[in-house]
């Protein structure tokens, strides 16, 4: 029997996606506009045999998530702006100690308490560089309720595969929006399981993970008797070693390369009407919805505009941006912040095309009309009066 469409909110879809991905531990602290994720899981987690914890703050939430993951469970937390800021130190711990986990940030206007109920895309750089020190991250941006579900599943898979925290960057609009969705059949989902290293406990110390073979860490409370640390450690033995520059350099480079080496495999991009496009709109998350409407509007008037929509924001989808830069003369980057990703696009395009940015930080979605204006300017010679 094919599944029938159901009406679902973005935040609910995140919660259900996490359960489908095998998450059985959630710890969080209420904050608008992410609270529905916690509320949904307060009911659902016990029903599926999992645990829901409301912690004393967001620092405790991400810390408990790290602990649960180390004990072998798929674990996650969800928050928004101020809470995401509080989590940064422990996200760094998860990076350093290579703890698979998922952090959902439903972006709202900031800084500080900012615009609690309004959407924003102001955390995209914080997702990349929020915690101190050299590191790399994976961040996914859903632009529909359906993607809130599928990308949450993908986030857990990537977390397990690369032994890393993965950030899902939703926003107040996507999180609170209701859409009719037909969820994938549970059996059709690819789910990455944790596994245990295929070796004797005594050998584990000397078995090394390399970039193409990232071994899972055995859970706490096993014969492996692992040591997990936020200090610089020798990545062959997991033993802390802060006095040897070679060990520190090796770990630092490994933590970055672990993601960068695989970035073409990780990066997902939707390219819409790009085949003969002369102008591309580079837009992600909720803004990509307006952008797509503009592409349809332009195409109806025979104007060659396409959309490049990064689904993976980090690692940055360099391949797709390269393709785009070789093809189009202008890239329009509308985003609900002031130039955060547009700088990145500019660096990647590297003079091969003009980059036009458009930012909004008033808590309102960038409308199709606003993007249309930018498109018209690029096709000033087109006879718009005819359409």
């Amino acid at each position, binding site marked *: 029997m094919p599944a029938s469409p159901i009406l679902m909110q973005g935040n609910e879809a995140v919660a259900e996606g996490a359960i489908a991905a095998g998450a059985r531990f959630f710890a969080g602290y209420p904050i608008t506009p992410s609270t529905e994720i916690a509320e949904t899981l307060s009911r659902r987690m016990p029903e599926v045999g999992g645990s829901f914890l409301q912690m004393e703050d967001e620092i405790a939430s991400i810390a408990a998530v790290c602990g649960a993951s180390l004990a072998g469970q798929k674990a996650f937390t969800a928050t928004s702006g101020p809470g995401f800021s509080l989590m940064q130190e422990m996200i760094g711990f998860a990076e350093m100690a290579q703890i698979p986990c998922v952090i959902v940030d439903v972006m709202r206007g900031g800084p500080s308490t900012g615009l609690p109920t309004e959407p924003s895309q102001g955390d995209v750089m914080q997702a990349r560089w929020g915690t101190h020190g050299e590191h790399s991250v994976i961040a996914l941006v859903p632009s529909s309720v359906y993607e809130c579900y599928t990308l949450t599943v993908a986030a857990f898979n990537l977390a397990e595969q690369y032994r890393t925290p993965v950030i899902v960057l939703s926003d107040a609009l996507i999180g609170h929006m209701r859409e009719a969705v037909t969820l994938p059949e549970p059996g059709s989902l690819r789910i990455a399981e944790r596994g245990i290293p295929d070796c004797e406990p005594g050998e584990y110390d000397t078995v090394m993970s390399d970039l193409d073979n990232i071994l899972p860490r055995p859970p706490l409370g*096993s014969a*492996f008797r692992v*040591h997990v640390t936020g200090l610089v450690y020798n990545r062959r033995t997991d033993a802390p070693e802060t006095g040897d520059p070679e060990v520190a350099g090796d770990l630092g480079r490994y933590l970055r390369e672990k993601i960068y080496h695989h970035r073409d495999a990780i990066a997902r991009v939707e390219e819409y009407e790009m085949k003969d496009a002369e102008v591309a709109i580079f837009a992600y998350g909720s803004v990509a919805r307006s952008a797509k409407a503009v592409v349809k509007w332009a195409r109806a008037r025979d104007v060659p505009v396409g959309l490049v929509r990064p689904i993976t924001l980090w690692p940055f989808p360099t391949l797709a941006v390269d393709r785009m830069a070789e093809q189009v003369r202008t890239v329009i980057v509308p985003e609900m912040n002031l130039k955060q990703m547009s700088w990145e696009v500019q660096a990647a395009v590297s003079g091969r095309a003009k980059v036009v940015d458009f930012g909004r930080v008033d808590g309102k979605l960038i409308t199709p009309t606003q993007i249309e204006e930018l498109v018209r300017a690029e096709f000033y010679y087109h006879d718009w009066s005819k359409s």
Partner: protein
Amino acid sequence: MSALIDEQRIESPPESDYKLPRINPHKTSEIVPWLRTPKTIWCPGCSNGTITRALIDAILGLELDAEKVVIVAGIGCSGRIAQYLEYSTVHAAHGRALAVATGVKVADPSLRVVVAMGDGDCSAIGGNHFIHAARRNIDLTALIFNNSIYGMTGGQMSPTTHTGDKSTTSVHGNVEAAFDLSELAHAAGATFVARGTAWAYRQLVSVIAGGIAHKGFAAVEAMAACPVYYGRFNLTADPAEFLKGQKEHAVPASKFEEGESRLHEQYPVGLLHHGERAEFVTSLARVREEAQEALRG
């Protein structure tokens, strides 16, 4: 006095039927296999080694399955215990050990989790997690290395530094009042609270073992000597003299006169509070069962 509003709370007076476990210290040859390395960063005369040994003694004495023992530690001189012990260990972030341990215990209730923290780790940066872990009565053992100072960062004042005490950040004498960590734990809802000293080794092993054996949140405060900073600035830089001071000031809980607990005058040691009430992980399991039962209809 407890700060908890909880109808279920049952307090049993310390000396009723409950007795702390008595454990005979093990031979050094039995202790050594539980250490990953013979080298530590700890200064000569520091109490941290004594407390580490007492923890191993307690784990051995309780005959715990070593594979199921997990040590989660914070950051500080004391936090280094995680990298020295041959169990599953986590050296978490400063102040966050209890929050990490909460996730560990909920995810795998079969684990016996000991959370090693410094006094600053536990009651300054981690103070919020401390009171909430106690309030939840989660089955964890908080082992607090209380040396009344920030050792790791070089002798700054801590929430347990007494009024008037000198430190590198209270050069003119501390103007703040100190926390009594055991009473703080009790007020916040811990169902097992005990204190030992580095001086009285057998008692220290016994209070740690009692904490681990207890089902619920156990706070075990180990009074520690940091002769290098706290001692040198305030009492004595001589480790032996420091421990003799502990011998004079530590009073068995049963003989402790009502009144203020003061570090350099008198403070109670042994079992301080012991009670029973709903334990967090057990309650989560009950909720899980009820929710699944309701689903089945």
